[in-house]
């Protein structure tokens, strides 16, 4: 007969009872496996941050009008209209089609850029590396606005000025077409794809490519036959990630494309709560529809990430692939990159600056007048200082809290396996599947009766929930690389779980966490989807101020605020670079 002991889930081998010791006939005692405290706490936090709002959206879809309004009853009208009728089918297919197209193009270009910048000795590499990421520093709707000013078919700067320069009547570019919307969306999604793929390329075992050279294959052949197949999981992961994000975007098509023939679902959601006659349950129902599709996308994304991790091996001495020297066509590639950076980064900012300095919307260079009127008007806005303060609070508190929660989530997921780990993992990825405005509506309904309603606190709560997937991804990636034995040694030396986390894990994770912090700082500063629904007049950040300007047609003022926001972000990045000594790049992704 044997006795069996189980401690902390690690079963020891059965111990034969020593002879002479009488064995009790009753059943063996097994120490009960309790879920660790940290996991429970994290689970509760995620419940409030994520599961709660998402549940509210689902509940809200089954109402006749907005939750809490007088005369509201349970109703299946919205659900039936969205799920059972064909009314929103064109919108659904259009949205999915657009998302897939944008994702494919983003991964294609982002992947090529990543390969060029990690493998080839392109001249002026740091410039392009920065230039590709720069569009992240602009609120997407501000960027869309700039492109509208540049490329609207009749009045866009490009069209108007080329017309008199070349003496024709032609329309050269039309940003309000489907192609135009895709183009602008691409500018904002290529950086994501670039960062994800570039990270995979940097972490690849260099000997895999070197072996290909030794076997007589040149650069391009190696890239196609060895590099591409090995980073393919990373490419797939990036594809699904961008596709999921793209299904939920509403600011870009909202600003640009009322004339594209179909309305992206997220725009419909926004309209359903804002435009007369408003119908919030439809918005909620559409939100749930989007949820299923994007959840599927998230599932596929996670599968790809797992495959990607299987293929990524760290080289023999932890070496990173070195850059290949190439003659000739590296200059052509550099020119291509320069063109892209011009389109994505330089042009929009230039337009915004011009917009801030012209009193109204004249785009003909010959007729432009310049004045500081917009600047003065913005500065004189009584609550601009307050908005600025709110933006700073958001920009500092949100990333800090999100990173902390993300760290706890990563810890539970990576170190403590088991069912609760899996649930926490999935729960923490949910928010990517929910478009910002839908999520914010859920948060609104959840906190409507609480004292924190319309304060900065509720905005922060919504943002933490929305950004958690990013933070936990960074933290998980970093945590996986820290050998468990380092923490185990601390435990053997008497440190409890919390102390180990703070004195061992946290310092080792710092680079990954700081990278996450900076990225989230940028997101929190420029994000408008949640704040526009949740902030009150005193808790309004600058991004919402800009959005309000856009809504009421003062787009020059919006340009001023947008530029100012970019300055704030740049100041933050510079600060992080100098004081915290972290860069926003792909090496810690």
């Amino acid at each position, binding site marked *: 007969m044997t006795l069996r002991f189980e401690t902390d889930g690690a079963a020891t081998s059965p111990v034969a009872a020593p002879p002479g010791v009488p064995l009790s006939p009753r059943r063996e005692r097994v120490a009960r496996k309790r879920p660790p405290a940290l996991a429970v706490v994290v689970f509760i936090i995620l419940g409030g941050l994520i599961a709660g709002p998402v549940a509210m959206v689902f509940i809200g879809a089954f109402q006749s009008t907005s939750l809490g309004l007088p005369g509201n009853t349970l109703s299946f009208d919205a659900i039936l209209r969205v799920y059972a009728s064909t009314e929103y089918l064109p919108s659904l297919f259009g949205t999915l089609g657009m998302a897939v197209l944008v994702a494919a193009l983003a991964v294609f270009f982002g992947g090529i850029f990543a390969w060029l910048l990690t493998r080839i000795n392109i001249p002026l590499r740091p410039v392009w590396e920065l230039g590709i990421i720069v569009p992240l520093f602009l609120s997407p709707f501000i960027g869309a606005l700039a492109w509208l000013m540049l490329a609207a078919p009749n009045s866009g700067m490009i069209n108007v000025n080329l017309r008199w320069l070349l003496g024709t009547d032609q329309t050269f570019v039309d940003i309000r077409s489907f192609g135009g919307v895709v183009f602008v969306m691409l500018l904002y999604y290529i950086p994501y794809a670039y960062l994800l793929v570039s990270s995979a390329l940097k972490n690849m075992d260099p000997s895999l490519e070197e072996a290909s050279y030794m076997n007589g294959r040149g650069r391009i052949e190696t890239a196609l036959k060895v590099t591409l197949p090995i980073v393919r999981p990373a490419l797939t992961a990036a594809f699904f990630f961008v596709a999921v994000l793209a299904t939920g975007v509403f600011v870009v098509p909202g600003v640009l494309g009322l004339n594209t023939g179909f309305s992206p679902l997220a725009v419909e959601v926004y309209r359903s709560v804002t435009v007369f006659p408003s119908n919030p349950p439809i918005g909620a129902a559409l939100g749930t529809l989007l949820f299923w599709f994007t959840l599927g996308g998230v599932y596929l994304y996670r599968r790809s990430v797992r495959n990607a991790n299987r293929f990524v091996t760290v080289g023999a001495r932890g070496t990173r692939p070195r850059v290949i020297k190439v003659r000739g066509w590296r200059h052509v590639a550099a020119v291509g990159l320069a063109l892209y950076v011009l389109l994505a980064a330089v042009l929009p900012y230039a337009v915004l600056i011009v917009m801030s300095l012209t009193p109204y919307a004249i*785009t003909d260079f010959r007729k432009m007048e310049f004045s500081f009127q917009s600047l003065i008007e913005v500065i004189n806005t009584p609550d601009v200082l307050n908005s600025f303060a709110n933006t700073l609070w958001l920009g500092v508190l949100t990333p800090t809290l999100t990173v902390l929660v993300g760290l706890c989530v990563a810890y539970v997921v990576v170190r403590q396996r088991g069912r609760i780990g899996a649930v926490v993992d999935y729960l923490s990825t949910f928010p990517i599947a929910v478009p910002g405005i839908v999520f914010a509506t859920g948060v609104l309904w959840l906190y409507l009766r609480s004292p924190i309603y319309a304060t900065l606190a509720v905005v922060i709560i919504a943002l933490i929930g929305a950004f958690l997937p990013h933070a936990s991804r960074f933290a998980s990636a970093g945590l996986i690389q820290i050998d468990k034995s380092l923490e185990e040694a601390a435990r053997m030396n008497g440190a409890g779980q919390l102390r180990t986390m703070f004195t061992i894990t946290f310092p080792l994770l710092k680079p990954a966490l700081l990278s996450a912090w900076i990225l989230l700082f940028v997101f929190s500063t420029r994000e408008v989807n949640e704040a526009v629904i949740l902030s009150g*007049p005193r808790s309004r950040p600058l991004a919402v101020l800009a959005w309000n300007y856009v809504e009421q047609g*003062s787009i020059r003022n919006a340009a001023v605020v947008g530029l100012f926001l970019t300055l704030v972000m740049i100041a933050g990045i510079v600060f992080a670079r100098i004081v915290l000594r972290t860069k926003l790049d792909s090496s810690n992704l």
Partner: protein
Amino acid sequence: MKSIRRIAAVAAAASVLAVVTACSAPAPEAIEPTDGAVDMEALIEAAKTEGELTFYGDANETTLQTWTQAFTREYGITVNILRLPGSQLFQRFAQEMSAGQYQADVFSIADRVSMENAVEQDWIAEYTPAGADLYPAEQSGAGYFYPVQNGYFQTVAYNTDLLSAAEIELIREDPIAAAGDPQFEGRVGVNMPQSSQQAAAFYYRLAEGDGAEDYGWDALEAIAANNPLFYSSATLVQNLIAGEYAIAVALTDSLAAPQVIGGAPIEFVYPELTTGGYFATGVVENAQHPNAARLFMEWATTPEANKLYTQVTQTVPANSDVVDNRVIVDEDFYVSPQIDTVWFDFITDADFLEASAADGEFLPEWNDVFGYSG
């Protein structure tokens, strides 16, 4: 492990406590009028003690800022403005009031029906400011709300840089027909009826109201045949100035006039059968700053306040004590709207309200005719 649980529990409790105690001070008592008149001195003092108020409105934010800053200058009371487009504003207000979340102190909205709705729900406080009589009775909701932000009318606006004199004349003669004239194909922008009740009423009047005979759906179809672009209010005027199109249909004068004064190359004309309405502003029931709100209404109904608003927006002053010396009147092109033929009563017109409701037929039909996907 136990220690972590304890820490977590304490932290959770502490944060909940902090959040709950954060902002639930009871609202101050409102000073009620005695014998019909209110003790101004007491009101001012009580208002100053409250120190600030929150103003919910859907007019242009810069306009509201400029206007309310005069109030702040006089009494030193901060005005926090929440500006949202009309239906969104009402949504938010309704939701908050239903949930007992009293964020707004003064509520102002262009859509009269929404305001009447709010009064019905007991969300607007009963309060008659001293200057109430200075405002037309038909546009006020006596005891509840007053048109201190004047009125606004639908116009057809056009970009003078892009049109010949002959074309302009054509537009001024019959703007609706001109918008449907094939010579303006690809040069027209329209406001959607979904953007405001008044815009919906504008189209409704032409298609199915008393303008159906002269215009009807045919006129709308003609406009649709010109492949118009769809923009709402503020964007509509911006793109007109930028030159995206030459004619803008259903643009309110409150948006167009300040641009004209600012030097933009646009003009506008009131169609014969246009619609109009007045803003409604009132004190919110159970406001957090009731005395400041009441003081604000007192101030807003004064001729000085209305004169300022008139100046900023170039709309017709509603206060009978204010002389109309708007700059826009002096513009060559400007012709005042014919008040007698302006349709104000859409707000109570049962047919219109039914047709334009969410489940009504008018909007889908409009979408159909114009090929607007909504």
